[in-house]
């Protein structure tokens, strides 16, 4: 079998057109990864700069009322991931800046797409665009006449007359084309590793390896299917047309159709509905700025009892800070409830969409590619949760300072000093552990492996169906 694969590669290398196309692909891939990496570096620099600027701004507060500072707030930036140069995933549209302040959980803003002059259906030129859309086309063009071409030229008879087993011939053809896909993949990964240099670590290596594995499996499915149609149809044009049809359906139509269906099955509330529901629930809580509020009064009684005094003015602490924190905590519960529901729907949507991999392995590939690159919605949601956790700690520190920092109730003019503001911890993003990422993509991996099995079965069936005359 090895000599047949070697021969196929020798033919590829000697065919100037195919060689030119392959070299062109390699050049394009390397250039794309280089540009993606440069952009990624630039984004990281911008991120660091903005982060440092916000940090400096915060730490330069000389004196300020802590609750005033909570309203002043700060900004948290979504860190850039070096794997974005391979697959940017949803990052382009989700936004990367979030304002952190008291009383409100803001939405993430400033997506790259919102600032772009050009909107492309396929997104930006990234490694994933070429690896997902263009390389499969190259593999189809290389494989579509593997068997039908041999038959049409009459060489199939000669090959079989030399004692070649049909199964050996079919698998050699499939493997030689698949190996070319893997070579392109390997070059992409090596170029990426070269460009990121010392940023490579075991986490990125593992993610890259899994990403490459998912592409490799998909390329096998696509190649094997093309070879099967090349056996099934004696006319090469028919096998090419069939595969191009499948490519269009898999990569363009089915992902959109399945996503729309999933969104209909598991509906998310509209922005207005969601906001109204949140506001309604939020209005049931304490009004931190209104001392006449009933729940504030209840809290006041509890606090007076706790400190054994009769009036707020006798309290050794600032009661306003306690009210503010209680209000925050109520708001947090409302957020947890509504965003929890939203996340449940998003999880259901994701799981249903993953099932689309049963009829479309491209969906499994796309899911795994952005998941392993750390740029899927799961990572985005994880970032939002971490920011919210940080916001709670951040606001609590400010409210606690307001309550227990030395001021008395009603002293809205009291100010915390610079040392306090400097002591407030900055937001640190903790990347999602890879084991958690993998556990979310087990279904995609299993479905893609099932497709590999189906592809192998088709090749074996093709062996039996292969007609020489």
């Amino acid at each position, binding site marked *: 079998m090895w*000599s*047949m694969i070697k*021969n196929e590669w*020798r*033919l590829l290398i*000697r*065919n100037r057109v195919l060689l030119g196309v392959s070299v062109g692909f390699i050049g394009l891939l390397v250039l794309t990864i280089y540009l993606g990496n440069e952009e990624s570096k630039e984004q990281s620099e911008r991120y660091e700069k903005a982060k440092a600027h916000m940090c400096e701004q915060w730490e330069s507060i000389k004196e300020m009322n802590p609750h005033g500072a909570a309203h002043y707030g700060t900004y948290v930036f979504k860190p850039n991931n070096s794997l974005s140069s391979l697959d940017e995933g949803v990052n382009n549209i989700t936004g990367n800046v979030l304002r952190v302040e008291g009383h409100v959980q803001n939405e993430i803003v400033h997506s790259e797409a919102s600032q772009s002059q050009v909107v492309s259906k396929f997104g930006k030129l990234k490694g994933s665009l070429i690896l997902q859309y263009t390389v499969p086309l190259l593999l189809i063009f290389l494989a579509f006449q593997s068997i039908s071409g041999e038959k049409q*030229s*009459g*060489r199939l*008879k*000669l*090959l*079989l*007359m*030399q*004692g*070649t087993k049909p199964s050996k011939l079919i698998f050699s053809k499939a493997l030689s084309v698949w190996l070319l896909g893997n070579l392109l993949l390997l070059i992409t990964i090596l170029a990426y590793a070269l460009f990121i240099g010392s940023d490579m670590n075991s986490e990125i290596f593992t993610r890259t390896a899994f990403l490459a594995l998912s592409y490799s499996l998909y390329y096998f499915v696509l190649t094997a299917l093309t070879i099967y149609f090349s056996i099934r149809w004696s006319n090469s044009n028919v096998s090419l047309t069939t595969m191009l049809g499948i490519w269009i359906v898999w990569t363009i139509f089915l992902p959109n159709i399945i996503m729309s269906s999933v969104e209909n099955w598991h509906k998310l509330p509209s922005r207005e509905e969601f906001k109204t529901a949140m506001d309604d629930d939020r209005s049931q809580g304490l009004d931190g700025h209104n001392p006449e509020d009933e729940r504030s009064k209840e809290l006041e009684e509890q606090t007076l009892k706790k400190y054994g005094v009769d009036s707020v003015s006798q309290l050794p602490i600032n009661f306003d800070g306690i009210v503010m924190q209680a209000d925050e905590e109520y708001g947090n519960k409302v957020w947890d409830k509504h965003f929890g529901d939203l996340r449940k729907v998003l999880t259901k949507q994701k799981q249903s969409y993953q099932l689309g991999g049963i009829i479309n392995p491209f969906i499994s590939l796309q899911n795994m590619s952005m998941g392993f690159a750390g740029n899927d919605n799961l990572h985005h949601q994880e970032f939002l949760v971490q920011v919210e956790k940080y916001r709670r700690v951040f606001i609590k520190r400010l409210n606690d300072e307001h309550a227990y920092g030395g001021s008395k109730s009603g002293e809205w003019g009291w100010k915390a000093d610079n040392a306090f503001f400097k002591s407030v911890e900055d937001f640190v993003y903790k990347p999602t552990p890879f084991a958690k990422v993998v556990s979310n993509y087990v279904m995609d991996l299993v479905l893609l492996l099932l497709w590999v099995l189906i592809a192998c079965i088709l090749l074996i069936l093709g062996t039996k169906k292969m007609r*020489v*005359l």
Partner: protein
Amino acid sequence: MIKIENAVKSFKGQKAIENLTLEISQGEIFGLLGANGAGKSTTINMLLGFLSPDSGVVQIDHKNCSKDSKEVRKHIGYIPENVNLYPYLSGIENLDYFSRLAGLKYAKSELKDFLSSCGLQEEAHKKKVSTYSKGMRQKVGIAIAYAKKAKVYLLDEPASGLDPMASNELSQLLKKLASEGAAIVMASHDIFRVREVCHRIGILKQGKLLKEINSEDVSANELETLYLDFMKN
């Protein structure tokens, strides 16, 4: 060496071969003459094991061609009308590759000898097959069978499209192979070439072997008259 006995083959109810009986010995060249659709290619495909007869016997070296096709093919050299080799490989590389597929590994000098024995000029050995003429490709095709040490050569319209010189070289080559003990079946339209090369000639019409002739018994003109008479009636 080759035995066909009462072989019948039909396609969708249409008989392509009807009670064909033939025996060809080692060292013998048998010519199958007939118009298009007479059953020449069907006969060759049955011998190659790509088609099974509906009834009757098709054997090479006492082995059933369709049931023992793997074993039978080891001893067959097949030269189609157009020998389609790999155009981006040279003659010697094609020969090496096809020999390896048959499980045979030859040294470069041996490969060169095979090609030269089959009449391919040495300066062409390393040239890409895409630059070869049809005759040159056919010589490589024969060299592939020769390197396989085939006992039986099956040729389907081998002289079609060849210039007179190449055609003559092919005739000499086939005679040489027969003299080394090979049994050869050559299907052709070319009455004069068949008369010149073959020891015996069979005229096929609508799947039936109408006549078997010893080529020594007829001149080329007599064979042509005989053939045309059969075709007209």
